[in-house]
Structure formats: C-alpha cells, structure tokens
C-alpha cells in the first residue's frame, strides 16, 4: 500500500471514529462459530454468557461497551486467511479466535503483538496469570511472550467401541495395549471377527490437515522415542523412528487393511472416520478430547446416545514399553486454541478487558456448561466427566507440544503428504521419507535439520 493511500485510509478511519461518541465503545469478537452450526457451543457461550456479563460489568464501571460476535462460518484455513489479511492492514475484529500453533508465523510476519504491548500494564496485573500454568500459557506464546489466552487444552488417546472388542473376545474394560504389536493384534482380532470392519483409525493424508499431524503422526512418532524436532529444535528428516512410523501406517492401511484407506484419501475423510466409529465399523480411533466431548456427545451429528456405556478409552502405547518419548510407556500430545488481541484494535484497554473477562473464573466456569473441556485455569473445575478426570491424571503429565516455530506449519503439511504417499500405497516408507527430507530441507534449510540414519 502506498503511503498516500495509507494516509487516505487513516484519514477515513479517523473520520469514522470521530463520529462515534467517545464514551461508547464498540468491540467485535470473531470466531469460527455459528449458533446452530460450527462450534455452536462457543457461539452460544459468547452470545448468552460472555457478552451480557461483560457489558454489565463494564456498565458497573461506568463504561458503555457494545460487543458484537462475528460468526465465521467458513473453514479453519479460510479464517486464517482472513485474519492474516485483516491484521496486515490494521483492520478486523478486536478479539479473534486463534489456533496456538499459528502464533509463531503470525508474529514473524508482524501480524501479532504481545498482549502487554497491545493493552499495556493492565495485562501484567491481571489476576488470572496466577491461575494459569506455564505450560498452558505457552500454548499461545512465542519467544516467552503471551500473544493470547488459550481457552483450554487437550490430550489425545485411543477411543474404543466396547462391543466390537467383545465381539473379538477382548475385555474392553481391561483393554490397554502396551505396545504397537498388542494394538495391531487387537485390531487383527477384531478384523477377523468382523471382516467388514476397519478396526483401527490413525489419521493420515493431506485432506485431514493438522488432524493428520496431531492425531496420527505425532501419536506414532512419539512412541518411537522421537518427535518431529530433536532436543535442539532441529527437524528430524531421516530416522528409524520415521521409518517405523511409516511402516505402522503401511501395516494398518496397505498390508493388512486394518484401517479405512479410502477415508484417509477422500476430501471428507475425517468425517468418514467419525461415521465409521459411530456406526460400529471402527473399534479403535486415535483422537483428541474434542472427539469425545463434542463429536460423540449424545445428540450430536456423530453422537452416540449411550456414549458413556458404549465407549471407553486407552492410552496410546509406545512402540515397545519404555521406548516412547522421554522413555515413557505411553504417549500423547496437546494443542490449544483461544483468542488473541488484534494489534491494531482501536480500543486496546476494552479489548483486553473483554479477553480477560472471557478467561475469568466466572466466565470459563460458565463455558463448562456449554462445552465440557480442560480449561486452563486451575480454579475452574474439571467437569463431572469421567473421561476428562481420568485422563487429567493419566495422560496430561505425559504430554508434549508441537514446536513453537514459524516454519512448523509448512513442515506439518509435508508430514501429511508423507503419510498420504504411504497409505495410498504409492511410495515405500523409505521413498516417502526421502521426499520428506528433501522438502523439509527446502523449507528450513539443511542446517536446521538432522538425519539420524
């Protein structure tokens, strides 16, 4: 944008702000949420709980604030595009929903600023920080600075359809595979008892996007004792762990057809995996909290009326006991989404007041009534939800996170591609890894990669 155009634009912007009286403030929140559609519970929470509560609170403080929710109905990546374009021109909503893993690349692009830089000292004196652990804070941080607040975090596990296990003579309540071999054996037994079924689902392929990397590849590679990056933050581009992971995929989808290969390749594949699980065609599905609490919730599209009776869960085992990441027997990985402040917001103080109100004990507790989840504040109770309570103890201590790196996004796309070329049967694990190596080196440079073979 030329300076002259920018001046014109700023002039117009100032002109419009001057029309509104100084004491009335308008704030906009945007999230990928639509009442009755995508993330309906979040939309309802904001509309019915956050906005009335916040306006009342502000009124009590003598401020007249109007908040409107912009319900974004498109896809995740479309929302990312819009936010990136808006933030690059100083436009857009004051408070925006955001996936934590995108923070580094937005920050490097100059599209986000640390919370305290946007809203000043109010941020650092917020009461909430003392209730949020460092780990939870880091979900929306980069370079040690907080850019937003996560609404919650999650873990990943194997979800289990009990009756399918029983049909293969396995006891669902005692089910806990201790190695990949045991996991595969269970799947084989179920396949034998139900030849039409696709017992095991480990996400793969390009179409599932980040769900492939998080729910699929990460859950496997961590079991080999490796991760996507090594302890120095360098991307591992060739290793026995990658080969073992790809061979696991090959066993599941190509060699033994234990999983639904088509679902990994089709555009609507992830929903097909949900359908398979709901319809009792898949017995073991690796997914995050969201799957249990929202996707399978009774009454939801892929819901199970008797979810708590029909479904249980197990931890994802390492390849061999003790061979997992950090020497663990079981592995899991966490992510987090939340809200950020628009660095160009015209009302930074009020925008922060809104963001911090959303993450107050009162507001997050109210959120539990709309959607049960692992909230980041230690003074917000985990709801009376056996799954969340149990995994809070069993899996949360084992978890790890994705690299906080602006290039991660692109590397993740290459991971998805690598898994797809294996599960489609087009490439051998060794060839797929070689292609991955070349692609990642092209993204981050050879110096930021490491080969372990």
């Amino acid at each position, binding site marked *: *944008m*030329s300076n002259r*155009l*920018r001046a*014109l*634009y700023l002039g*117009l*912007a100032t002109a419009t702000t001057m029309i509104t009286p100084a004491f009335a403030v308008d704030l906009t929140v*945007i999230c990928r949420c*639509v009442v*009755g*559609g*995508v*993330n*309906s519970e979040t939309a309802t929470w904001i509309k019915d709980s956050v906005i009335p509560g916040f306006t009342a609170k502000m009124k009590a403080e003598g401020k007249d604030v109007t908040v409107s929710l*912009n*319900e974004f*109905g*498109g*896809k995740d990546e*479309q929302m990312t*595009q*819009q936010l990136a*374009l*808006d933030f690059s*021109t100083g*436009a*857009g*909503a004051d408070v925006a929903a955001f996936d934590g893993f995108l923070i580094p690349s937005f920050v490097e692009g100059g599209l986000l600023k640390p919370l305290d830089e946007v809203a000043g000292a109010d941020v650092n004196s917020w009461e909430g920080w003392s209730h949020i652990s460092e780990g939870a804070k880091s979900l929306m941080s980069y370079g040690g600075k907080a850019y937003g607040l996560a609404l919650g975090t999650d873990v990943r596990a194997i979800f289990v359809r009990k009756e399918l296990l029983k049909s293969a003579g396995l006891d669902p309540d005692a089910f806990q595979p201790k190695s990949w071999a045991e996991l595969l054996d269970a799947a084989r037994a179920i396949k034998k008892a139900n030849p039409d079924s696709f017992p095991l689902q480990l996400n793969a392929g390009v179409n599932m996007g980040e769900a492939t990397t998080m729910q699929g590849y990460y859950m496997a590679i961590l079991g080999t004792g490796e991760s996507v990056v090594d302890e120095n933050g360098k991307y591992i581009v060739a290793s026995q762990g990658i080969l073992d992971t790809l061979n696991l995929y090959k066993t599941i989808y190509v060699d033994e057809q234990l999983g639904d290969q088509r679902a990994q390749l089709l555009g*609507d594949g*992830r*929903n097909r995996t*949900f359908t398979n699980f709901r319809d009792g065609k898949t017995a073991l599905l690796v997914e995050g909290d969201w799957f249990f609490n*929202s*996707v399978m919730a009774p009454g*939801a*599209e*892929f819901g199970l009326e008797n979810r708590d009776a029909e479904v249980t869960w197990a931890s994802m085992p390492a390849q061999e006991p003790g061979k997992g990441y950090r020497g663990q027997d079981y592995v899991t990985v966490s992510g987090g989404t939340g809200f950020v402040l628009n660095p160009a917001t015209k009302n930074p103080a009020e925008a922060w007041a809104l963001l911090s109100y959303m993450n107050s004990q009162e507001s997050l507790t109210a959120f539990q009534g709309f959607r049960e989840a692992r909230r980041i504040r230690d003074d917000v109770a985990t709801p009376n939800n056996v799954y969340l309570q149990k995994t809070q103890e069993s899996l949360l201590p084992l978890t790890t996170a994705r690299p906080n790196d602006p290039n991660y996004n692109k590397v993740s796309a290459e991971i998805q591609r690598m898994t797809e070329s294996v599960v489609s049967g087009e490439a051998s694990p060794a060839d797929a890894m070689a292609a991955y190596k070349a692609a990642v080196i092209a993204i981050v440079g050879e110096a930021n990669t490491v080969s372990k073979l």
Partner: protein
Amino acid sequence: MRLSFPQLLARIGFSALAAIIGILFALPLIWFIFAPFNARAELGIAIPDPWTLQNFLTVFGNGFAMRGLLNSLIQSVGGVILVAAAATLAAYALSRSSIPGKSIVTYVLLLFSSVVSGTAAMVPIFLIVSSVGLMDTHIAVILVFAGGLLPTAMFILRDFIDGIPKTYEESAMVAGASPVQAFFDVALPVIRPGIVVVVVWAFVNIWGSFLIPFILLRSDDLMPSSVAIYSFYSEAGTPIVTLLAAYSLIYSLPVVALYLFVSWKFGFRFFGGIKA
C-alpha cells in the same frame, strides 16, 4: 418438405442421440428434485416417504442464510448493471470508433483479466479495497466483480457488435441523428440480445462466486448465499444433507428464473464471432 427415408432415419437417430445426451446431463441433478423434500439425509436417490416441507421451514428460519439471498441479489444486480452498462458503451466505442490500437485492446485485457481472476490477485484487490476504505461494503464487491468481468463482457459484446452492419446507424445519422442518438435509439435495440447474454453470464458468475465476497466482506449481514450456504455444514464440516439440499434449491431458483425469463422474453443468442 417431405423427408426421404434416410433423412427420416437420420432425424430419428439425431433425436435419440440428443435425448441420451440430455439424460446424461440431467442425471447428476435428479438428486436435487427429491432430497430437499426428504426428512432423512440420503446421498442416494430416494423418493421421499413421506414428502415433507420441514427442511424448507428450517432453512427459512436461518436468518443468516435468508439474508444471504438478499445480499446475493444486491451484489449480483449491482454488478450486472455496472458490467452491462460499461461493457456495452466500451464495446460499442471499440467497434465503431477509430481509436488507435482498439483491435488489440480486448485481447490484452482478456489476458490480463485471466491473471486477475486467479487467486493470486486476491491480495492486491484486498489491499486496494482496504486502502480506499471500502472493506465490508456491498459496493466493494460490486466494483471488483464489475472490473473483473468487464474484459470478457467487452470481448463478447464487441464480437457481437462487429457482426451488426453499420448501415443501421449510418442511415439514422444520414437522417440527422447525432452519434450518441444513433447509439441509444438505433444501435442499442439491435445490440440488446448481446447485452442479454452478458447479463445472464455476469449474473450467473456473481451469483455463484465465493472468493471475492469472502475476501472483501466481514459482517454476517452482508454475506451472500455462496458464503452463507456453509452455515448448513455441521461443526465437523460435513454437509447437513437435507438442509443443504433445500437451501441449494432455493439458492438456484433465481438463476433458473432469470434464464427462463430471458429466453422467453428475448431469446437467448449470441451473434458475431471473431472476424478472421
């Protein structure tokens, strides 16, 4: 004229072939006749039992989607008027004046517009619109569509006008009309079928387009149907088949109506063709 036997045979063969092609074209759409009236979501063709209008009632209750239809209408009509008016004037000028380099201009613009209609140009367009403060307005969408569709509209219309003999206007001018009068009173009625083609083509393009409104609009109450239709996708991004089918039917009606109206009122035809 009486047909000879082989001619009759050929005609029957042609009719059969045309009918088969027609059926093949209709097949993918048959589903839309039934699905909106079915209570259960089916990807296959299933005759509804019982037929229900419930899906439509639910769709009518979705304010976002209903407003989307109105917004689509505003943007399409606005864009079409602008495209048709500007393209007619420009194409006429290119066809009838002796402006130097006029013969090459439509080709060059056509090629440029092919770059701009791709996704690469969405960023500059966003920057232009945002720098003049038109973000999140109908007028921005209308202007951008008009600009993008104009080169092709001019190309089609210039072909068309070139195909019309100049004698019409010439005789009017001999009778004392000014060139502008000759354009409005004599040429315009003759060009009308060509304009109609451009109107339908532009309307269909704007009506169905997702990317431009998506990039330029932010408020829910300005979004057109092409964006609003995604509110009939569930949380997980799967289409809610019954509602989507019902909304699709409503969303499709205006273009079908426009086509039927135009072909009834004006006939739907092109003229011209590049003078080789």
